[in-house]
């Protein structure tokens, strides 16, 4: 099997690769979004704690 054949997927390349592409986007987004949110929340909570200690 050549690389071109692999990409072509017997003529179904556009269907197969668009499916895998969408899956990649959804799976990566579900890793990145919670990690970013974790960082943001930690920063905000730390700020809240500092303000609580000061008041």
């Amino acid at each position: 099997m050549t690389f071109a054949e692999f990409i072509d997927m017997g003529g179904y390349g556009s269907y197969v690769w668009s499916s895998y592409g969408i899956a990649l986007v959804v799976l990566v987004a579900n890793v990145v979004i919670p990690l970013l949110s974790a960082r943001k929340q930690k920063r905000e909570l730390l700020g809240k704690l500092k303000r609580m200690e000061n008041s």
Partner: protein
Amino acid sequence: MWQFFHKLASPKFFYDFSSRLIFWLAIVTIILMASGLYMGLVEAPPDYQQKDSYRIMFIHVPAAWMSMFVYMVMAITGAINLIWRIKLADIISMSCAPLGASFTFLALVTGSIWGKPMWGTWWVWDARLTSELILLFLYLGYMALRASIEDKTNASRAAAVLALVGVVNIPIIHYSVEWWNTLHQGPTVTKFDKPSIHTSMLIPLLLMAFAFKTYFVSVLLVRTRTELLVREFRSSWARKELSK
């Protein structure tokens, strides 16, 4: 073992334990997914009927299985929260919703892309497709309901009740291909006889299914840990964790 579960329900222990678990689950997910993709896309032969288009299955089927599995986790942890008022169960239930919605979305979209070349249409209003679409609406409804009630305890109880009522949809999805005439093909793996799928396709499918499962648990834990900190940030362990 019960002692371990009891300990796991304590927020501090859960927070420390899950940190290590996420690391190992991430590694397992990468290994499973890499081998599953290689075997599914490169090694497995084309299907005699569907040619190479069937390779969409390696995403579509695990995503569809997860869409139902995650719903059950969400409903059961919701019930645990309703009955025993375990905060951690509520946090897990809440963290399930966006992930389950993502898997359902993925199952619907990849199914649609698979349906176009095989059935000649992107969408039909048949039992399997419609009940899976209802599942997506249940997830979205769960999230909307939670967001619309300001009091966190009330929100968690209302959402748990909605999740439990929605469980009725799960057997409908599973048996839809048997109960009704549908374009969707019947089950080839989850039936009582021997699976009617060749080993060269079954193994990558199972690898991908396990990869999706470990992926789900690891991402679920990340969400759960964050929400745990938000709810517990006044306690001493959370303060220590935050000032690290």
